[in-house]
């Protein structure tokens, strides 16, 4: 059940939609920031734009091709200065197909965020009503104010929890599921365990370089995405409540008294 049904479809653009799967909204974004997240991990830029299908497709594509081409492994060797090692581990059968899609993800997310900023300005000006409450058999979602700091803290503990905090269910599920794979195969937590025991050499030796390099991006994205969207959801709440108050609680016959203040 929703509190607004778009039956007449008489508006051109809508700035937000609250559904069972999450709060989707247009807001202003820095195209360079979006392009950067696509560069860090193809798909992240699109996920930030709430374009889940292409974001998730690009994400899965990246994991498959990167793991087969050994891009991450080659990166580790290159950063360490072992260029011969890097050349040896790269698989040319996979590596060359990496480049066009990688660049497409960056270019397309940049272009889309420039476009979506324009759409936001038009939608904001049109100020069409939107659904702000949704209840169904499986979930409940509504506009609310949440603490941005809590989104960051939970994302740091486990990527995906910050998204769960603000009901971005799709990103949350995906981040949680993939973090399991990344943490397990990279053996990061095993390495941390060795660090707690003070065994630094074992800790380094146990890590899988190829899988390890997915994690920094995963953490960074989870923090950024949950923080930005918490802030934007809060702003949307304020705007929606402001409209509601003006519409229902500004009776023209109401007269403000000019008497005395009783202390």
């Amino acid at each position, binding site marked *: 059940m929703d509190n607004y049904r778009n039956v007449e479809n008489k508006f051109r653009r809508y700035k937000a939609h609250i559904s069972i799967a999450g709060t989707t909204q247009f*807001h*202003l974004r*820095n195209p360079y*920031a979006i392009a*950067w997240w696509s560069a*860090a991990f193809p798909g992240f830029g699109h996920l930030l734009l709430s374009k889940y299908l292409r974001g998730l497709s690009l994400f899965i594509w990246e994991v498959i091709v990167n793991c087969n081409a050994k891009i991450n492994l080659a*990166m*580790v060797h*290159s*950063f*360490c*200065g072992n260029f011969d090692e890097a050349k040896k581990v790269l698989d040319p059968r996979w590596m060359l197909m990496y480049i066009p899609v990688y660049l497409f993800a960056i270019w397309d997310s940049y272009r889309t965020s420039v476009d979506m900023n324009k759409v936001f300005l038009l939608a904001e000006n049109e100020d069409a009503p939107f659904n702000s409450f949704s209840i169904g058999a499986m979930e409940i979602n509504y506009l*609310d*104010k*949440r*603490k*941005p*700091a809590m989104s960051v803290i939970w994302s740091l503990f486990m990527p995906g929890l910050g998204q769960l905090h603000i009901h971005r269910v799709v990103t949350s599920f995906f981040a949680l599921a993939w973090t399991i794979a990344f943490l397990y195969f990279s053996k*990061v937590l095993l*390495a*941390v365990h060795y*660090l707690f025991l003070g065994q*630094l050499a074992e*800790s*380094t030796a146990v*890590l899988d*370089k190829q899988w*390890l*390099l997915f994690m*920094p*991006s995963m*953490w*960074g994205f989870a*923090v*950024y995405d949950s*923080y*930005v969207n918490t*802030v*934007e959801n*809060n*702003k949307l*709440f*304020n705007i929606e*409540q*402001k409209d*509601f*108050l*003006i519409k*229902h*609680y*500004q*009776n023209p*016959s*109401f007269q*403000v*008294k000019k*008497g*005395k*203040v*009783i202390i």
Partner: protein
Amino acid sequence: MVQIFSTFEHSTNLELAIMMLEKNGIKKENIFAVPLTNRKTERKLFDTIHNADGVSLISTGATLGTAFAVIGASVGFKLAWGPIYCGLIGAAGGFILGVCIDVFYYKVFKKKQRLLRGKNTEVILVIECDEAQADTVEDILWHHYAFGTARII
């Protein structure tokens, strides 16, 4: 009749207060809400639940933090401290550097006015009621976190 003035921030509590007032016999036409445009001040570092200026200074920090964590974790395989410590140092160092760049850019370069710090009065709520009801109305307002109230005759 008296009028009770009160101030609030945008929150679910405000709507709960209005609901309670209506349940206590205050008519809808006797409630007058004035959402405010808030005063702008210098840009803040982090947004809170009460206050968000949108262009927060976390973007460059998160960007550089991630980039440096990747490089730190990679080079860490060669360094004495290992990839996890180096990755964490890279993340923290990149984040701090990013925040410093933003602070420098926004506070020194572009001194723009942003939203006021801390809690802001975002809505003025005026309620007209009988004198006998005034205490109940004020109680309801305080109970739902009004910042301040005043009674006028």
